């Protein structure tokens, strides 16, 4: 899908996994370029871990093939694949100390003198002084670093990371994200990272594949996915989106005009993935941080040419850096706006009549034949998730 095949690419062709009558992974084609940091992002049960385990050789695909470079490894058992995994629960050997855990792979491949290599690897993850401790004597973050060292010391062609930061608290997770990114740049090995945390995926990966119900919904660079979601699932799962159901009024070559709840909105034609003719339906979206609120008394101060939606503020949450507003309008309920607290308008309290406006260039359109709430259920409270979590972007509790 991305790039041209070269010596060290991971190539999945038509790979799928079926358990009885449940299809965990639908036939899937995916190419991970050599040396890239690739993230498989999705909610739990979307098939991302199964995909990873098929690359590792711990799960046999029902159909399809796995290639590492030119080599077909589909039938190769896990212990013969030049691939190593950092497991979700680390899976450190409890009966071996840190040194022996890290040396395990080397010893199994018959390497005689492991001392220097293990020492260097432990220094890389800053655990040199803990070499003789047992895993249970280490903190979660330290255990995680042992797991990374144990896999990396074998210089695998590909390092697979199965939600390796899931068990850490938020602060430590952020630090380990940077740490892993640093290690990846340093060693230049292909990393394939499975996660349900969209912020983590965007912060670390060069390329993100968003998976949903056993399929890849969209694949691309983080910024590209965020700015140009192709489906409602991606729009809602990656950050938050205001999606409005609208009807096309006119479709010119450069701009499509739509009507929603009495307001007319413009969408750049190149940001509409489906053919639009007058009378057809579309979903029109904008990210909450790209929208602004102006009190109804001052609508004349809104520059011309912006999309406008009138409504009433239902909630305003002050978060220090920004304030999050929820606005109900005829066009849609619970539209979110994240406003930086530069010049805060004190009139923007619940009950205030407002105009929500944003640049037409920031508007995207999606096929209306989809579930408008797909990808929002991760927090249970779909329309107010941003406010509930208290952070600008949804934080998956998983």
């Amino acid at each position, binding site marked *: 899908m991305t790039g041209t095949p070269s010596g060290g690419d991971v190539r999945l062709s038509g790979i799928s996994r079926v358990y009885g009558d449940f299809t965990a992974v639908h036939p899937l084609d995916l190419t991970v370029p050599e040396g890239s940091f690739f993230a498989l992002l999705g909610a739990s049960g979307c098939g991302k871990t199964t995909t990873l385990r098929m690359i590792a050789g711990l799960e046999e695909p029902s159909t399809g093939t796995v290639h590492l470079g030119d080599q077909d490894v589909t039938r190769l058992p896990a*212990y013969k694949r030049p691939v*190593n995994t950092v*497991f979700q629960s680390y*899976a450190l*050997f409890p009966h071996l100390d840190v040194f022996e855990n890290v040396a395990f*792979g080397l010893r199994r491949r018959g390497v005689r003198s492991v001392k220097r290599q293990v020492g260097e690897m432990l220094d890389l993850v800053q655990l040199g002084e803990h070499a*003789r*401790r047992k895993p249970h004597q280490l903190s979660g973050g330290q255990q995680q670093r042992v797991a990374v060292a144990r896999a990396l010391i074998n210089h695998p062609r590909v390092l697979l990371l199965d939600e390796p930061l899931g068990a850490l608290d938020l602060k430590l997770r952020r630090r380990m994200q940077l740490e892993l990114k640093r290690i990846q740049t340093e060693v230049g090995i292909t990393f394939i990272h499975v996660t349900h945390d969209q912020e983590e995926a965007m912060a670390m990966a060069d390329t993100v594949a968003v998976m949903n119900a056993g399929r890849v919904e969209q694949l691309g660079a983080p910024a590209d996915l965020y700015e140009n979601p192709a489906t409602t699932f991606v729009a809602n799962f990656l950050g938050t989106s205001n999606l409005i159901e609208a009807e096309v009024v006119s479709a010119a070559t450069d701009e499509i005009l739509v009507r929603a709840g009495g307001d007319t909105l413009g969408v750049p034609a190149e940001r509409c993935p489906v053919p639009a003719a007058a009378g057809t339906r579309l979903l029109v979206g904008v990210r909450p941080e790209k929208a602004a609120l102006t009190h109804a008394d001052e609508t004349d101060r809104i520059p011309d040419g912006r999309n406008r939606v009138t409504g009433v503020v239902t909630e305003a949450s002050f978060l220090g850096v920004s304030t999050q507003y929820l606005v109900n309008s005829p066009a849609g309920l619970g539209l979110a706006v994240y406003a930086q607290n530069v010049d805060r308008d004190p009139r923007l309290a619940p009950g205030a009549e407002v105009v929500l406006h944003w640049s037409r260039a920031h508007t995207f359109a999606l096929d209306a034949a989809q579930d408008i709430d797909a990808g929002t259920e991760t927090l249970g409270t779909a329309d107010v998730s941003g406010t509930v979590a208290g952070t600008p972007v949804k934080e998956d509790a998983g």
Partner: protein
Amino acid sequence: MALLAWIRRRLVVVFGLLTLAYLLLPNVVVTVFSFNDPVGRFNYSWHAFSTDAWSDPCGVSGLCGSLALSLQLALWATLAATVLGTLIAFALARHRFRGRGAVNSLIFLPMAMPEVVMAASLLTLFLNTGARLGFWTVLIAHITFCLSFVVTAVKARVMSMDPRLEQAAQDLYAGPAQTFLRVTLPIAWPGIAAGALLAFALSFDDFIITNFTAGSTVTFPMYVWGSAQRGTPVQINVVGTAMFLVAVLVVVVSMAVGNGRRRMQEMTRKQA
């Protein structure tokens, strides 16, 4: 009042000590009476201090022979039951096969059945198959009842083992045999050791089943029982005390080794 308050503050300790005394009192009596010089054939009342029995523990005919036989039986029964039981436990914990549920509950049967019933049925079986009662029939009987205990102990350990550990080993270039030797077995080891210890203790002091299946062979428990009819030599107390001391010694040594290793680890950690 002061005394009551003192006791109340140390209630747990007091009860703990009382329980310990209750448990250990029989051992004390056995030890004390191993130094007795009894009048008559029965070693039931204190007469005078003597170390005669300790200086000649095999002085009573048949005693040391029966002890050697019991030890031999216990070792073989433990070995066989541990190997078979471990394999059964892995099969039950790891694999789904037809009749797994039945095996799972049948394996408990020997533990639940009254020993005397099992003894009688084993005897019937041996007699009907024309087996000659002796060492081999006793060994077979011991393996039978030890097996369930080993399976139970090992299965609990294997079930609680994270399957990802073995996957991690495979991921790190360990083939099936290496994975079993380097990861599975060391982690299951405490369960296997517990099962083996249990099997040894059960086999060594079993009386009822042994008595039914031994024919003219005499194990140590049978010897003690037999001599209790005719008179108890002090040597029985000597052997009992010696066994108790060996058991205590094993525990103390293993604890000391464990502590020493831990201290070594701490020392290397501090030096590093």
